[in-house]
Every structure is written in structure tokens, then in C-alpha cells.
């Protein structure tokens, strides 16, 4: 029998024969490792899980159109690529216009939005009834509902007046005098001709710029230099007829016609849209305690069909990320050169950062204190179990065992217990952390693979340390004294 085999046999024999004591030691190491693994897993995951809870404060980032640009739903998808999908809790686009309720001679701020997004970005919205699920359904703020006396199931007839909305349109789209128009039409040989006209106070043409770079240089291409031709347009009111209001430039009839066409198209596109009236059914009354109670909410589809435009005023985003990370995303959106710019809602981001920091520190300190105390607890138990065996140590020494062989045996036993307890603890700890996460946050926790070796190493180290101390004392004493029972 080799020495190693003997060593193993001694350890296993000791473990098996002294079942109850070893069970106690194993149990205590197991508890220590469970607490270690469980708490550390929770600690690592708390910022993420708590951060998700903080999203109930609502949007922490706003996407706005850049100055002079308009933002549409199509642009939005492009913009959102800057933010990782798994961190984006929700996005709610908004378009605000004023709608008239002719029957009561009142007008309200109406927000067109995507209700699926709203439930995610503004979970604090409290709706009596239900969110609109299809078109022609309306969510009414509590203040409006109380003032005009509508209830869930009532109908409201709302009208969109183009003039009422004019002031919130961008200059390009504006249908009022003093705005500028731009349009294009096909010129000679299929090349496009572009025009931009500024209108004066009387909605007549004030100045005109043309882009005819696609036209033949000697013919249509001469137009920008021809002051007399361009001067004919000044002071004229659109639409124009070629040959009546303005004369074609000789040799460039097709291009001249294209310019007139482009202008006419531009003014037609910008012509005041007709008022549109829709009868809505009220599906819900909204309570928030904020200014939203003075708005009505309708779907973006209704908003688009009423106003004939799919532009957005603002998009509220709820992103589950820390303040620094949010700033990075905002810079990425703003810096991408698209039509959108991003701003952080400081009230939410700043406060979240400070509260979350405190909570993380709390869990950290608690974890630290609990771990420290538990580990001392484990080692006292181990020490008690080992020091109980002083007689055995004395006997072995009397039989001629060397100090180092005794130490090695006990250490081996301790390390084995540490290994076993560590594995047990890592598994139980994860189960515990999972239970906590599901109960508290309603979502599962991520397994930290590094924690398995860490839990095993720590429990082995503690087991070994708490064995060594009592053994050192035991082997130092004269075997005769130990055996005598002093």
C-alpha cells in the first residue's frame, strides 16, 4: 500500500466513521458558501435589476428633431439603432397639435402616440377603462373629462383646423405668407429641375432660386444667369401659367416650363389642407397628477390621417442604463448627423444615479458584514470540531506520527470538506439568489460563472485556516498531557 493510498484511506475513514461531526463541519461550510454565493450574485445583479425598477419614473432620454429638420417614424428606427435593443425599455413617439371640439367651442392639446410604447415609457399612467386599441379611439385626461363631462364610452367629435396648427409647422411645410416653398419637375432630357421660392407677406414670390445643373449648358443651363427671365417671377402669385404670367426663355422652353411646373407643384403640396373631423370613442380616462391630465391622446394613425403628415415632435425613450452610458448613447444619436438630436431628462437620470448609488452601497455593506460574520461563524464551528480530536492527535503522536504528517492529514480533511461545502454552497446560493430575484424583481438572475471557483476557493481557505489553528496547538502539547485529558 503506497503512502498516498494510506493518506486517502485515513481521510475517508475519518470522514465516514465520524459521520455526525463531519456532517456538522460540512453543514457549516456549506452554509457559509451558500451565503457567499447567494449574496455576491445578488450584489452583482442589483444595479441592473434595480435600474429596471427605476424605469417606472418614465422616460430618461428625449429624441427631438434637429433645428430646421422634421422627424418621421421612418427616421426614428434609424436613430434607435444607436441604442442596444436589450437596454431599450420602450420608445413612445409623440406629435402634439390642437384639436377643436366644435360642439363645445373648446380646443384641446392632442397628443398622437403609440400606446404600446406609452405603457412602457410611462408605467405610472393610470387609466380608468382601457388604452385605445384601434383607430378612432381616444384617451382623455382626467381634467378634460371632468370639465366637459365625458365618460368611458362617450363620443367626442374633434376637428383639426390647418390654420390652428400652422404655427407649429416647420418653415418648409408652412402654408402661411412669408414662408418658403421648394419643388421639382422633370426638365429637358429627363433631368430634374429644382426651385426654391421665398414668399412675401402677401404670399407672392419674393425671390427665386433655381437649380438647373442637369440641363444643357447652352440652353436651359443659362437660366440662372438670365436676370430678365428670373425677374418676371417676382411679385407674382402662384400658381402660374407659362405664356400668360411668365414668358419662356427662348431656346429653353422645356426648362422654363419645368420651372413653372415645379413652382405650381410646390404650392399645391403646401396648399392649406382641409379641416378634418373625426368622431372618437373615449376608451379611457387618464390620471397622472401631471399636465398630461389636460391632454387627449389618440393613435399616431389617427393623427396622420387627420393632419396629413407623419412628422413627430418628440420621442420619449426609456433606456435601462447608467448616467454615463446614457450620455454616450445621446452623443451617438446627436453625433450621427441624422435628423435627430438626443437630450437626457436630467431630473430622472441625475436622481436615479444618486439613489441607485446609495442602494448599491447598502447591499454592498450588508453583504460584506454578513459574509464577515458568517465566515467567522464557520471557522469557530470548524475549530470546535477539530479541537475535539486532541486525544486522537495525542495518541498518534505517542505512536510515533510526525507533526507534519498529522498536520497534512487534518489539512487534507479540511480542504476536502471545503471543496464539498463550496460546491454545495455555490449551487444552493444560486438557487437562493434566483428565488430572491424572482420574488423581488420578477425576473431571473444571471449566473456568475466565476462565482463557482470563488466559492470553492474561499470555503477551502476558511476550512484549512480554521483547522490549522487548533491542530497547531494540539501538536505542540506533550502527547502524555493530551491523552490524560487535560
Amino acid at each position: 500500500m503506497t503512502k498516498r493510498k494510506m493518506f486517502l484511506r485515513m481521510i475517508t475513514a475519518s470522514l465516514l466513521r465520524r459521520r455526525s461531526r463531519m456532517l456538522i463541519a460540512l453543514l457549516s461550510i456549506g452554509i457559509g458558501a451558500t451565503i457567499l454565493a447567494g449574496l455576491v450574485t445578488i450584489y452583482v445583479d442589483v444595479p441592473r435589476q434595480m435600474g429596471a425598477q427605476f424605469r417606472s419614473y418614465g422616460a430618461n432620454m428625449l429624441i427631438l428633431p434637429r433645428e430646421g429638420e422634421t422627424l418621421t417614424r421612418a427616421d426614428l428606427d434609424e436613430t434607435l439603432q444607436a441604442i442596444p435593443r436589450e437596454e431599450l425599455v420602450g420608445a413612445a413617439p409623440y406629435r402634439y397639435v390642437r384639436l377643436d371640439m366644435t360642439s363645445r367651442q373648446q380646443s384641446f392639446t392632442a397628443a398622437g402616440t403609440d400606446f404600446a410604447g406609452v405603457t412602457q415609457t410611462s408605467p405610472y399612467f393610470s387609466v380608468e377603462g382601457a388604452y385605445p386599441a384601434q383607430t378612432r379611439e381616444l384617451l382623455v385626461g382626467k381634467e378634460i373629462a371632468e370639465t366637459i363631462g365625458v365618460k368611458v364610452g362617450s363620443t367626442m367629435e374633434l376637428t383639426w383646423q390647418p390654420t390652428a396648427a400652422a404655427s407649429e409647422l416647420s418653415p418648409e411645410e408652412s402654408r402661411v405668407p412669408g414662408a418658403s416653398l421648394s419643388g421639382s419637375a422633370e426638365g429637358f432630357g429627363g433631368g430634374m429641375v429644382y426651385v426654391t421660392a421665398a414668399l412675401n407677406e402677401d404670399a407672392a414670390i419674393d425671390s427665386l432660386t433655381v437649380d438647373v445643373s442637369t440641363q444643357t449648358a447652352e440652353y436651359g443651363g443659362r437660366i440662372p444667369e438670365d436676370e430678365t427671365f428670373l425677374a418676371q417671377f417676382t411679385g407674382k402669385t402662384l400658381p402660374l401659367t407659362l405664356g400668360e404670367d411668365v414668358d419662356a426663355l427662348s431656346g429653353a422652353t422645356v426648362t422654363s416650363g419645368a420651372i413653372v411646373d415645379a413652382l405650381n407643384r410646390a404650392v399645391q403640396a403646401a396648399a392649406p389642407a382641409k379641416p378634418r373631423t373625426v368622431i372618437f370613442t373615449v376608451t379611457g380616462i387618464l390620471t397622472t397628477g401631471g399636465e398630461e391630465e389636460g391632454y387627449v391622446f389618440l393613435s399616431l394613425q389617427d393623427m396622420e390621417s387627420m393632419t396629413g403628415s407623419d412628422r413627430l415632435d418628440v420621442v420619449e425613450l426609456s433606456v435601462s442604463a447608467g448616467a454615463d452610458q446614457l450620455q454616450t448613447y445621446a452623443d451617438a444619436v446627436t453625433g450621427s448627423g441624422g435628423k435627430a438630436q438626443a437630450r437626457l431628462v436630467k431630473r430622472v437620470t441625475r436622481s436615479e444615479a444618486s439613489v441607485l448609488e446609495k442602494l448599491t452601497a447598502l447591499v454592498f455593506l450588508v453583504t460584506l458584514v454578513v459574509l464577515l460574520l458568517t465566515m467567522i461563524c464557520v471557522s469557530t464551528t470548524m475549530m470546535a470540531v477539530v479541537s475535539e480530536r486532541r486525544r486522537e492527535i495525542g495518541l498518534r503522536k505517542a505512536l510515533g506520527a510526525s507533526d507534519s504528517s498529522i498536520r497534512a492529514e487534518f489539512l487534507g480533511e479540511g480542504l476536502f470538506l471545503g471543496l464539498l461545502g463550496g460546491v454545495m454552497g455555490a449551487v444552493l446560493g444560486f438557487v437562493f439568489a434566483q428565488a430572491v430575484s424572482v420574488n423581488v424583481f420578477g425576473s431571473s438572475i444571471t449566473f456568475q460563472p466565476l462565482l463557482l471557483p470563488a466559492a470553492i476557493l474561499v470555503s477551502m481557505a476558511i476550512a484549512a485556516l480554521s483547522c490549522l489553528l487548533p491542530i497547531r496547538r494540539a501538536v505542540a502539547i506533550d502527547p502524555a498531557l493530551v491523552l490524560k485529558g487535560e
Partner: protein
Amino acid sequence: MLFRMIRGVLFHQKGKMLLIALTIMLGASLATGMLNVVMGVEEKVNKELKNYGANIVVKPKDSSLLADIYDVGEGAELNAAWLREDELGKLKTIFWAFNIVDFTPFLDAQATLPDGSTAKVTGTWFNHHLDLPTGESLDTGVVSMRSWWDVTEGRWLDERDENAGAEIMAGALLAQRMGWHAGDTVHIAAAQGEMDVTIAGIYDAGGDEDEQLFATLDLVQALTGREGKVASVEVSALTTPDNELARRAARNPAALSSRDYETWYCTAYVSAVCYQIQEVMTGSVASAVRKVAESEGTILDKTKLLMILITALSLIGSALGISNLVTASVMERSQEIGLLKAIGAKDRSITGVVMTEILITALIGSAAGYFLGFGFAQLIGHSVFGSSIEMNTQVIPIVAGLIALVTVAGSLPAIRMVLRLRPAEVLHGGH
């Protein structure tokens, strides 16, 4: 004889008993520390959440909607209802006065700037000193209720300053548009007056407020001729997360049974605090800002539950640790117990001796552990929240009961096992 034996054990087996006492002390300190933290955490986190600003807004009855909905401009006297500035102190006299942390009045006006454009100027308190009817005093204002503002230039307007009445704070976007800097003097005009004001500071609020002006309440009252009137009050109150009763009460307090009503009124639900504010402020409607109130509830509940579960884990851990050690130490004394049995001791008296020893040790250990644990709770309180955690007397019986239970439970199986042993066998040295 019993006393002598116990004294003998306590003094002769000092080492072993010390180990048990140490373990029990650690267990008890863990229990004490965690329970104190768990009971104090709600209040602490609640205070931290005040960072998000007011959770209650008080407005005059019937007027709240008019300005927003009809877009009536300054001077249209539709918005004829106001709150009274002299009643603000009454907020600290309601049943839950102690839970009202901060409150600030607001009064808006449309001001004409030197270049002819207009901006909203809001009159409010910055660091207002208020002497309460109760004889106490309170310092409150936007300095604490807009904790997320950054003063990018200059300083916060200081109401203790004698020039405060002619000072103003400008939003970053407005200042940028107008080319203003801290220290500049600008001329503003409103419905009932005009004056030169000095810009004390420029703030970045990250919202609509960046395009506004903030001045003292007196200044805006003078500009608009509305002395002693305020348009709204923001209140920051420590509240209990809503439950089913609170939701029922929020809809209609009158519909509650008198018993439910009492429970609701005497609990710091946000709806109860709102109700009490309405009772003291003439013609007011107080409503919960759901964005803040609801989120506070969620976060408080989650934090508390998390801490309770961590506490439960550490309690189970320390309980098992203690009972383990007690079991081990009783078993270790099998020889001694065998000897006692051999000389004719009764089972009952052996149990009595062993249990008394252990319970005395446990008592000493847990008393020391209680103070150690309280120290841990304070350590956590101070390093995380910067304030001490109140000593909670409920913790003492819980910890005492827990330790007693654990110690007895830990010794029973071991004693039973030892008693079953035959003295001859034990003394012979077999295990």
C-alpha cells in the same frame, strides 16, 4: 451543587465556552444589525427618493385646467382662483406634518424681455426661512426641491441676501439665446410692473425650465399685482406605498367604513396626506404626482423585500451556525456526561446542567452581540445614508427569542444522543 458544576464548566472550560459565546455573539450581532437596517431602510430610502422632487401638487380648486387648456394669456382674469401664501405654514400642522419634508409655492407670470420676446418668470422660494404656527421653523425651497439643477454660472439666489428681491435666475437656454451672463442687469416687464433685475446665476435643468426665469415669490407678486397669492404648491412628503385600501380611499374617502377611514387617515398614504392638505388650505385640490408617488412605492417595496430576504438568509445562516456549534460542543462532552451517568446522575439533571451552561453562555454572547450588531447597523447607516439608524426596540425580543430557540434546538438532538449512550461504552473511549 448545580451552581458549582455550572461555575466549574464556565471557568474550567473557558476556551470552549468562549468559542460558543463568540459564535452566538456573532450570530446575534448579525441578526440585530440586519433587523435594524431592514426596519430603518424604508425611511432612509424614502428620503433619498425625495431627489425626484415633489410627489404632491396643490392647486386652487376649479382653476387648474383653465390656463393649460384654453391657452389664455397673461392678463385674462379667467384664472381667478389662488392659494393664499399666508396659509402655507399650515401644511406643517396636519396629522402627518412630520412627514412633510419640503414644500415650495409657485406663481408664474409672462415677462417681456428687453428684445421684445417673452419668457415665463416663476416666483418661488429658494432657501426660504419660515416660522411655523407651531413655534418651529423650517428652511425650504427650490434649492432642495430641484436637486438635479446645475448652476453653471454664478450662484443660487440667496433669500437671506438683502438684494434678493432684485435678483433673478435664468435658464441656460434662455441665457444663451439672450447672451446673458451672471451679474448682468436686465430689464423685465409684466402685467402690473417692470423692473431692473440682476442675474444671480444661470442654471441647467435639462428640461422646459431651461427657457424660463426664476425669481423670488415677492418679486413676481409685485410684477403681477398678486400680493399674497400663489398659483400652486409642490410638496415633498414621505409616504407609505399605496395598497388596496389607499386606492379605494383615493377614489372617495367618504365611501369608507369608519374603521377603514381611521386606518387610512392615520397612515401616511399619499392620498391621506393629500386629503389632509386640502383640509387646511382654503379652496385647494391636492393631487399625487403619480410619476413620483407610484415609482417611490415600487422602489420602496422592492428594496424592503430585498433586504428582508437577505436578512432571512443571514438569520438562517447564523441560526444553523450556532446550533451546529452547540451540537458539536455537547457531543464533545460525551465522556463527562457518561461519567455523570455512571455515578448515578439522572437524565433530567444532566440535561438541566448542560442546558443551563449553554443558555448562560448564550445570554452573555447575545447581549454582547446586540451591541455589536447595533454598531454594524450604525456603520451601514452612516456610510451609506450619512445618518444614524434609529434603535428599534422591537429588535430586542426578536433577537432574544431567536437565539434562545436556536440554542435549545441545537442542543436537544445532541443531548438526546448523548443520553442514549451507555456509560461504559463512552468511558471506554468508543465513539
